């Protein structure tokens, strides 16, 4: 997060890095955030009074492809971290950009999906299903977007020489990586719960 933590508190009570522990704590909090949104969706998915029902409208093959794209971005994120751990800044930038590109493709798929659903008559205001679907997947998309911004910032930092020395840079890349992998893993849960679990009717 900043050089302060790295310079003054390189020695900590547990030996673990402050920023990494903080990211874990934050991700723990995020579990409850997505847990509440997913619970809401589970409550409402079978209660459609007006408008389309979930499996009338889902295009499972399409979303499977975009989910695959997002999962692959975790692989490229791992490769980015491996590159900076070797001190390979060029490799780092390539893999970070690849990760950001895959994330952007996923977001593009989500924008396409949302606009298709609206055309087919499912809006935020249509039903409790519409509200809970758009708010859950929308918040996930917002998390991916924030992740993309952080990845692009890392690319910029790498160019500007702000990820030197490589060990310090690797710490920062790993931190953003933790967030990115979490957002991916949450999507596995969301994809399963929303698209794969059958609904009534």
């Amino acid at each position, binding site marked *: 997060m900043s*050089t302060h933590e790295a310079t003054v508190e390189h020695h900590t009570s547990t030996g673990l890095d*402050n920023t990494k522990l903080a990211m874990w*704590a934050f991700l723990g909090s995020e579990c409850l955030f997505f847990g509440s949104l997913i619970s*809401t969706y589970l409550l409402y998915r079978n209660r*459609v009074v007006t408008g389309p029902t979930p499996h009338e409208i889902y295009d499972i093959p399409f979303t499977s492809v975009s989910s695959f794209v997002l999962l692959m971005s975790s692989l490229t994120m791992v490769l980015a971290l491996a590159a900076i751990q070797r001190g390979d800044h060029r490799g780092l930038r390539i893999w970070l950009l690849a990760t950001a590109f895959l994330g952007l493709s996923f977001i593009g798929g989500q924008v396409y999906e949302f606009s298709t659903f609206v055309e087919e008559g499912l809006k*935020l*205001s249509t039903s*409790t299903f*519409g509200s809970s679907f758009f708010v859950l997947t929308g918040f996930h998309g917002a998390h991916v977007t924030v992740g993309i911004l952080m990845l692009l910032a890392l690319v910029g930092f790498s160019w*500007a020489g702000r990820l030197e020395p490589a060990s310090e840079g690797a710490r920062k890349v790993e931190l953003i990586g933790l967030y990115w992998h979490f957002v991916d893993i949450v999507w596995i849960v969301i994809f399963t719960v929303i698209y794969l679990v059958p609904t009534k009717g």
Partner: protein
Amino acid sequence: MATHVETIPRRRGLLARPTAKTGLWGWMTTVDHKKIGIMYGATAIFFFLVGGLEALFIRLQLATPNGEVLSAEMYNQFFTMHGLTMIFLVVMPLGVALMNYFIPLMIGARDVAFPRLNAFSYWVFLVGGLFLYSSFFLGGAPDGGWFGYAPLSTSLPGNGMTFYSLGLQILGVASLAGAVNFIITIINMRAPGMTFFKMPVFIWMSLVTSFLLLFAMPVIAVALFQLMFDRAFDANFFNPALGGDPLLWQHLFWLFGHPEVYIMILPAMGIVSDILPTFARKPIFGYAAIVFAGAAIGIMGWGVWAHHMFAVGLGPVGNSVFAATTMFIAVPTGVKIFNWLGTLWGGDIRFKTPLLFAVGFVALFIIGGLSGVSHAIVPHDAQQTDTYYIVAHFHYVLFGGALFGLMGGFYYWWPKVFGHMLGEGLGKIHFWLFFIGMNLTFGPMHIVGLQGQPRRTYTYPEGMGWDFWNMMETVGAFTIALSMVVFLVNVVVSKAKNEEAGDDPWDARTLEWAMSSPPPEHNFDTIPVVRERDDFWDQKYGRTEEQPQPVIAGGADGHEEHTEHIHLPSPSYFPMLASFGMPIAAYGVIYFNEWSFAPLVIGGGILITLLSLMGWVLEPGTAEE
């Protein structure tokens, strides 16, 4: 460690680095946990006066039957804002103020883990509070109760409940950032030798509180977002016509709301657990028991939320389970009470003002705790729900409990923070007025509650038999107000008298009393090495052999550098700037359906926050020499 700093090519941030250490800019850009703690405390006391003023209006309205001081609409706004203010803008931040100031001092650290994040928490808290209060001038404050039950909260006219959904959301960001900061500070920044079971009880309770915040805040965040989407963007989370479920709100709200109760009381329990040993001149009785009881409350607090919902008809199984868990949670609470009594038993007790407040806490918390257990009896609860009996109960735990503990903490630590004592005479007058006023206000609410006086109702007819006690409650409320005047006079008079406190005026036990009053900016010249629980007491009275030379945290490699110059985190504009974007974006949401340019306002607010965070990341935590 510091070597790589020189290798990074330096560039200017977005703004020139602030350098002022004093004056207005010094306070606005500070990242010093002590200054931030003082700002938290001052802001919370200000909101306490505002929330108290609202309470006085409520009591004036209810002093006599058919009162005409407030209209029904204003009454709804006043009791809602009174609750929101006292919970989110007073009790929580007062706890945070003391945690901010004393966690680093008590664990032997130079600052919290993330000093700028700490400043960010404060500024977000401040703008969140001001945002919430701006609703009074923009068409009406929230008026659906602090619990905001849907679908009432989604259908109330005006923007009040939209302010509620966004204001609490902003305050939640502050709490979450603070919680992460304190957790990492306590886990990772302890001085050498300060193992978990040598930490003062206040530190333990701060840790449990922070974990509760970490996991409770996201739950209420989701509920508040759902309310916001319903109100501003036509979503239908809570619309019964489309299958929306009012119980969803209640479950999410109380899944946050009950841990929130412990978030408010645990810091006070920690404070009392440090005050009692100091003034009884004995170690805390059963340290491990009191620590584990606190942790047990923190864990069990997640399994009792539906006792707030017995009246909605969860069915016999649900009701029985939550009745049982609620009775069980009284066990660790009882353990703590016996620990406190055991600490006082046989002690060399000196009845100074902090101890009066601490003992007042124990006494009043027992009353509030017992009436709390009476809610766990489901048929009994059905009689109490929505009556003044409930109001009596939670004021005994939150006023008699949390506020007495926090006030005790103020008297206890005032000399450390400001270097002079708070007057004992005025302090004792403050305590007795506070104590008598509190019991006069909330004691009779048990009686009128059991007689059926409904809460959240702006007036009541004559001839119900409630007139006398309601008048007494109003007299009590003004007694409390008088006691706060005494407190403020005490603050001013004590400052003028400037009675030198010295480093250790109470002959206390924990590490913060080992340093000067007020402490130097860098806290410790050398990081202490802790050997015992109550290490400072042990240094004064316990150690017979020669004390070992204190060594610097970080080991021999950093030794010389640190003794010559201590690198402290530098002031920064960005935490404050980042907080400003949030209310701007929130106003955009509130007027989304009225302003055509509202999306631009929302985007602008988000952009301000993002750019400030970017500047924050680009700026090194410690400026160049």
